[in-house]
């Protein structure tokens, strides 16, 4: 067992426990804090996958922006949903069953697939990847259109959020 594998197993265990706590914890603030731990664990996986840029994006966008947005939303809507009483509906067993069935289906597909146990191929040009990514996002014959669409989507999301959540003057 190499050091990478040990790191993977420890981080995976912590991340999965944190993920389960996100969906089961009664206090929503605690849920949001567990969500931050889950996102941090996922960032470690990006580092293990030689995609350090995504670890940085994960910390900046997910932990820095989205998780804080969640905490603000929880605090803005706090009084109605007190932390007492059940936080899940009466069909929780059905939800668990569907989730387990989905996992069984995914596992079935994976075990029948040849490349499932593949080891990572050697990465030759590791430091040039970020340059390559940046260039491919602005070159018209690669991913310029998806990139621009994503930015238009972000602007639309921002305008929509301001319009929907803003206080209307009667």
């Amino acid at each position, binding site marked *: 067992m*190499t050091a990478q594998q040990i790191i*993977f197993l420890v981080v*995976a265990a912590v*991340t*999965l426990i944190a*993920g389960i706590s996100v*969906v089961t914890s009664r206090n*929503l603030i605690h*849920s*949001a804090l567990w969500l931050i731990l*889950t996102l941090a664990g996922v960032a470690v*996986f*990006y580092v293990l996958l030689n*995609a350090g840029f*995504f670890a940085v*994006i994960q910390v900046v*966008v997910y932990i820095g*922006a*989205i998780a804080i*947005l*969640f905490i603000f*939303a929880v605090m*803005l*809507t706090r009084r*109605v*949903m007190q932390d007492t009483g*059940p936080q*899940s*509906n009466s*069909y929780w067993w059905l*939800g668990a069953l569907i*989730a387990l069935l989905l*996992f069984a289906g*995914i*596992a079935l597909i*994976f075990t029948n697939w040849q*490349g*499932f*146990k*593949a*080891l*990572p*191929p050697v*990465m030759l040009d590791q430091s040039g990847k970020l340059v390559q*990514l940046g260039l491919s*996002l602005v070159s018209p014959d690669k991913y310029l259109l*998806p*990139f621009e669409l*994503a*930015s238009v*989507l*972000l602007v*639309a*999301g*921002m305008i*929509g*959020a*301001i319009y*929907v*959540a803003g206080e209307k003057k009667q």
Partner: protein
Amino acid sequence: MIPLSWYLTFAAILFCIGLYGVLVRKNAIAILMSIELMLNSVIINLISFWRYRAPEGISGQAFAIVVFAVAAAEVSVGLALIISIYRRRKSVVAEDMNLMKW
């Protein structure tokens, strides 16, 4: 060396946890949090497939960036909707949002 199967299994478990949360939680904000878990597992899948199947290209990472942008837009609009509903109906429970229920 970590085999691809570990990442895929981890992402599948995380996705199923998120699915359970979406189906079961009452609070709409908790449902959005579970959707974030599912989106994260999708991004792990994209990047691990990029790393193990096509590391010479860059398409996996470009797709992952688009998923990041979609997640950010989704969560901002979703939370704005929840806050707007909370203002009008004083509730964030998903079952109470039944104005358009048939």
